[in-house]
């Protein structure tokens, strides 16, 4: 993360900071008794500041994340003592058709939602970055859904989507749609309805992130490009896109995580239904443990949690590699392994969800995908070392 530009200080004797990596290393004479005492005092001081937050943070976040990796390999059901069962939970998950469907539905929600929200947020940010009358109002309007409670949102959208009494279908009727979709009560249309609400709710948040990014791009760049005769599209591609890269990285990572973990919107709008048409991974985890029909299989649900964790981790690492590659000079073929890797990933997910093998099983595609990305990662780091 960002290392501070302002050099960190110790109280009273700033010289001692050098040894731990500050700028004054050359001045420090090496470890001395005096120095060690200072270091100890600093450590105590630092921890005294961090401790009140850290104790809570470790308890509610760090320890549970570590525990997750243990529980996923046990048969814990909250009543008996946990037994180590190795990969048994995962084998069971792979055979479970509900889980397969949940993975499919998670991707079915996440991919359209990421694309729609990302594009709309960027478009809105670009529009609202202009000097227009009423910009403040439009920005506020776009952001407001994001801070509205999910329960109120579900109540009103379920009514708006109501097949017979809802204004949405009334409007569709008005435009001559004879058989408008039944939205949240139909298993084909429930997920699209949730995607619409998710996009409506979240795009304002990402718009703000993009707006902040746009404001870091100097206006002079655009003016200079205009003088050179660049049209709007060229200015977008050559100034806006590279200028927004750090923001885009952050937005896509957060948006992807937020989409793959989707839960509360589904819980309040359709409760996983109708049937299991909006059953996602998070919902599976919840239902197995804390939900109404809980089976108390904490170990089993932890294995599903670990799958979710790895999906989010994969997406983050992918984004990271792409971001690292972005400003490197690279040969034309260097994006090939990435594209091939993504194809393998898509085949693995698809194969897993439908339960059919396409020439080889989904597990092999996953292995191929990982290999491709190890290659991309290694290649990127070699390029970086060479070019820095």
């Amino acid at each position, binding site marked *: 993360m960002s290392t501070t530009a302002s050099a960190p*200080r110790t109280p009273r004797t700033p010289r001692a*900071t050098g040894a*731990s990596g500050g700028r004054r290393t050359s001045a420090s004479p090496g470890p001395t008794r005096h120095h060690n005492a200072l270091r100890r005092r600093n450590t105590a001081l630092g921890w005294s500041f961090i401790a009140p937050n850290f104790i809570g*943070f470790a308890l509610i976040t760090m320890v549970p994340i570590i525990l997750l990796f243990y529980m996923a390999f046990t048969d814990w059901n909250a009543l008996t003592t946990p037994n180590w069962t190795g990969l048994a939970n995962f084998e069971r998950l792979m055979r479970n058709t509900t889980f397969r469907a949940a993975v499919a539905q998670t991707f079915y929600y996440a991919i359209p939602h990421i694309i729609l929200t990302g594009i709309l947020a960027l478009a809105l940010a670009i529009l609202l970055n202009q000097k227009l009358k009423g910009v403040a109002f439009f920005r506020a309007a776009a952001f407001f859904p994001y801070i509205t*409670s999910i*329960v109120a949102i579900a109540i009103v959208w379920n*009514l708006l989507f109501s097949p017979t009494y809802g204004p949405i279908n009334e409007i569709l009727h008005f435009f001559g749609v004879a058989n408008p979709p039944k939205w949240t009560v139909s298993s084909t249309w429930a997920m699209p309805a949730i995607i619409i609400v998710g996009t409506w709710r979240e795009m304002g948040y990402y718009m703000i992130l993009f707006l902040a990014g746009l404001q870091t791009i100097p206006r002079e760049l655009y003016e200079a490009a205009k003088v050179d005769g660049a049209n709007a599209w060229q200015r977008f591609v050559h100034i806006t896109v590279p200028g927004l890269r750090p923001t885009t990285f952050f937005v896509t990572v957060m948006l992807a995580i937020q989409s793959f973990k989707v839960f509360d919107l589904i819980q309040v709008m359709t409760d996983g239904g109708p049937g299991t048409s909006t059953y996602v991974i998070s919902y599976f985890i919840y239902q197995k443990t804390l939900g109404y029909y809980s089976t108390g299989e904490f170990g089993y649900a932890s294995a599903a949690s670990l799958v979710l964790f790895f999906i989010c981790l994969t997406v983050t690492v992918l984004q990271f590699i792409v971001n690292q590659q972005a400003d490197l000079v690279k040969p034309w073929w260097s994006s090939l392994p990435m594209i091939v890797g993504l194809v393998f990933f898509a085949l693995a997910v698809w194969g897993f969800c439908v339960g059919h093998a396409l020439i080889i099983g989904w597990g092999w595609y996953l292995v191929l995908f990982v290999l491709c990305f190890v290659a991309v990662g290694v290649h990127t780091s070699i390029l970086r070392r060479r070019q820095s």
Partner: protein
Amino acid sequence: MMGKGLHRVGKAVLYVFLVAFAVFLLVPFFWMIMSSLKKNIDVFTIPIRWIPQVFQWHNYVDIWTQAAMGTWLQNTLILSVVVTLLQLLTGSFAAYGFARVRFPGRDALFLAYVATIAVPWQAYMIPQFILMTKIHLTGKGLWPMIVLQAFGAFGVFLMKQFFETIPEELSESARLDGLSEYGIWLRIMLPLSGPALASLALLTFVTTWNDYMGPLIYLRNRAYFTIQIGLKTFQADPQGSSLNALLFAGSVLSILPIAIIFLLGQRFFIEGIATSGMKG
């Protein structure tokens, strides 16, 4: 001349587009308010009526007697205020340690903080629930929720970013005047961090107010229901589900405080979110 005319047309098109978009964004709220002023039986009608015939203002009185609005709002308010105060206090305190004290392992620890922001809560909510049960925090009124919300990494991150923009010279001269590090945090850093503290306070307050999943898992006793979980049970309850208009009145009441806070402190929301995105 032509260019200017074209420019004007372009601007008009842009405005039409923006207005259409604003309608899409705001219609649900309009519908919510209008439905809250209808008779219960008029919420679902054919043909659809956008504006009620007679405004039923008494819905906003009835909801307090028909549902435990008072209890829900009180719980939510207590929870949000306590969590916000704790988050501000522990977050800014820890941020000072990360931003201004150098000790071995500091950067690794900070990395651990930031990395957890990228781990979805849904992935570790089960071990977390077990841990909370093991230390006997579940079922103790609002306490599990306070513990759950108050020690987030986000506050530490946001405050650290801000502290690093405050010139070190100020602390240095305070140090020469004999102020301790705790004194510098209290007398120098906090007073200069008004906007960042406001951003963090508003974002934390709103997140806690709106939280649905946490209360769903941890607050199983009706006496401790928050407004979100209260409204949801009211909706699922056979008696409540016939009181459609009241349900909408409750929804409006649940977002009214947030709307007021948002209108008053919009700048801080936006700055807080923008800062969080700047880490790149």
